[in-house]
């Protein structure tokens, strides 16, 4: 079966900086989170997959269609909500959606479809106001709706909740869960692990321009191996952490090695995706 997204030996540099370095990735469907810190190259990969920029070398295909040679087919298969909002600020939310629907060939049904979508997202009232009056959260949600105005095979969301307050963030998560269930493959990029865990079936970790890990949330945590003994103070901050393989002897040895004892509590922790990520990217782990 043709993969939904297939990336082979992809390279992209900006001036002297190599951003994507021999990147390989295969996505067969479902909701996939592309996880990586700021500057990892997520938006660069999204821009290549959505035909906005060309790779220097390597290939990227969507349902077998090359993003460079067959860009127009890819444009009809993929919808994207970019990292920055891309709405028409002078038009209303409803006019924005209806216009994009017409541009995608929905014809007269575009307006109905816009109303239906606004209704589902509980944006019907906001839909009659000009976008320039919207809050950041509303803008983001309408931007998301704009990618769903017509059916697509692949939906790409570039950091859909970055910069949102917790309430708006939860609403966008609900929107994604509600809207992305009809067999559309979703690739979403994120910097946060809880977002990946909350939304995705699979997680792909991007670091230094390449994929360093790929699997389900469970598989990734398993990669990190055993449990660790941690010493936490009354406020819950980790004072000390010693890795173990989970056996009685190694836990006992770990406790033996711990120095501080002034009222701190001992916990046995299973590896979280956070740990997995830290390990995979060799980033200094912040106190959990």
């Amino acid at each position: 079966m043709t993969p939904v997204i297939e990336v082979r030996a992809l390279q992209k540099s900006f001036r002297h900086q190599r951003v994507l370095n021999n990147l390989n990735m295969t996505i067969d469907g479902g909701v996939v989170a592309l996880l990586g810190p700021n500057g990892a190259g997520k938006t660069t990969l999204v821009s290549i997959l959505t035909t906005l920029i060309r790779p220097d070398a390597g290939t990227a295909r969507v349902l077998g269609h090359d993003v460079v040679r067959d860009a127009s087919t890819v444009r009809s298969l993929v919808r994207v909500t970019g990292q920055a909002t891309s709405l028409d600020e002078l038009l209303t939310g409803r006019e924005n959606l209806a216009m994009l629907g017409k541009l995608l060939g929905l014809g007269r049904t575009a307006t109905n479809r816009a109303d239906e979508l606004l209704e589902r997202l509980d944006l019907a009232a906001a839909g009659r106001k000009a976008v320039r009056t919207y809050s950041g959260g509303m803008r983001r949600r309408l931007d998301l709706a704009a990618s769903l105005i017509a059916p697509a095979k692949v939906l790409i969301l570039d950091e859909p909740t970055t910069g949102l307050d917790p309430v708006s963030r939860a609403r966008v998560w609900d929107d994604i869960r509600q809207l992305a269930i009809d067999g559309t493959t979703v690739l979403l990029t994120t910097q946060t692990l809880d977002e990946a865990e909350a939304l995705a079936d699979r997680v792909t970790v991007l670091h230094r321009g390449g994929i360093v890990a790929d699997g389900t949330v469970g598989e990734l945590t398993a990669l990190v191996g055993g449990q660790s003994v941690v010493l936490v103070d009354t406020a819950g901050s980790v004072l000390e952490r010693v890795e173990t393989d989970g056996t009685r002897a190694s836990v006992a040895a770990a406790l033996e090695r711990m120095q501080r004892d002034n009222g701190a509590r001992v916990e046995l922790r299973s590896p979280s995706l956070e740990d997995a990520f830290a390990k995979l990217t060799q980033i200094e782990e912040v106190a959990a």
Partner: protein
Amino acid sequence: MTTTTTPATGVSTLSSSGVFIRRSLLHSIRDGEGLLMAIALPVMLMLMFTVVFGGAIQGDGRYIDYVVPGIILTCAGFGASSTAVSVSRDMTAGAMLRYRTMPFVASTSIVGHVIASVVRNLVATAVVIGVAFAIGFRPDADLGGWIAALGIVTLWILAVTSVFAVIGLIAGSPEAANGYGFIILFLPYLSSAFVPIETMPDWIAPVAEYQPVTPIIETIRSALVGGEGQPLVSILWCLGIILVALVLAAWRFPRTPVR
């Protein structure tokens, strides 16, 4: 969502142009202040030149017949300059990024801005001509003369708008786009629009003589109130400007940065 997953096939260049023309016209109507200025400024300019300066410039009272064609052309420059801002806003504020990921010709959004500008300017021109009649403009043109004059005016509006669209493509921000184009707004003052070239100093007369606004104004003037025009030179100037703008736009559009 619905169960159909047949992906969108997009629309033809003609259809997307139609959608974008509608969008830009909506922008024009929504931006009430901008529309008011596009009409009020030329009217004020005309009243100033005819009522305030008119008596001093030409005592016989027929200065209005001389100056109206120039006002109409100056007005085209005012109305077209906002095209640079609209195009730049699309290029820099993200909308174009989405269009470029969709299955239609993204540059048709610029066609929308250009056509809307032509429509706005023709409305402003009609108002200016109406006010001119009200204050004593009495051209002796027949229907053919009017058609010829409006044809040249429309061509000039299209040419000026194309230049402003290119400025919008090149400018780094809508504010910068707004700042450019001074020269175009200035051209009519350095032409035979307001005073005959013979009355200008020797060193400036050739500039006024060989810039596009002068032959175009002379042509409109001859079509409406008589005298000698240069229709062929005027049409060639306009088509030449449009061609250069198209070439520049076609070169620049694919090279605009993605972020």
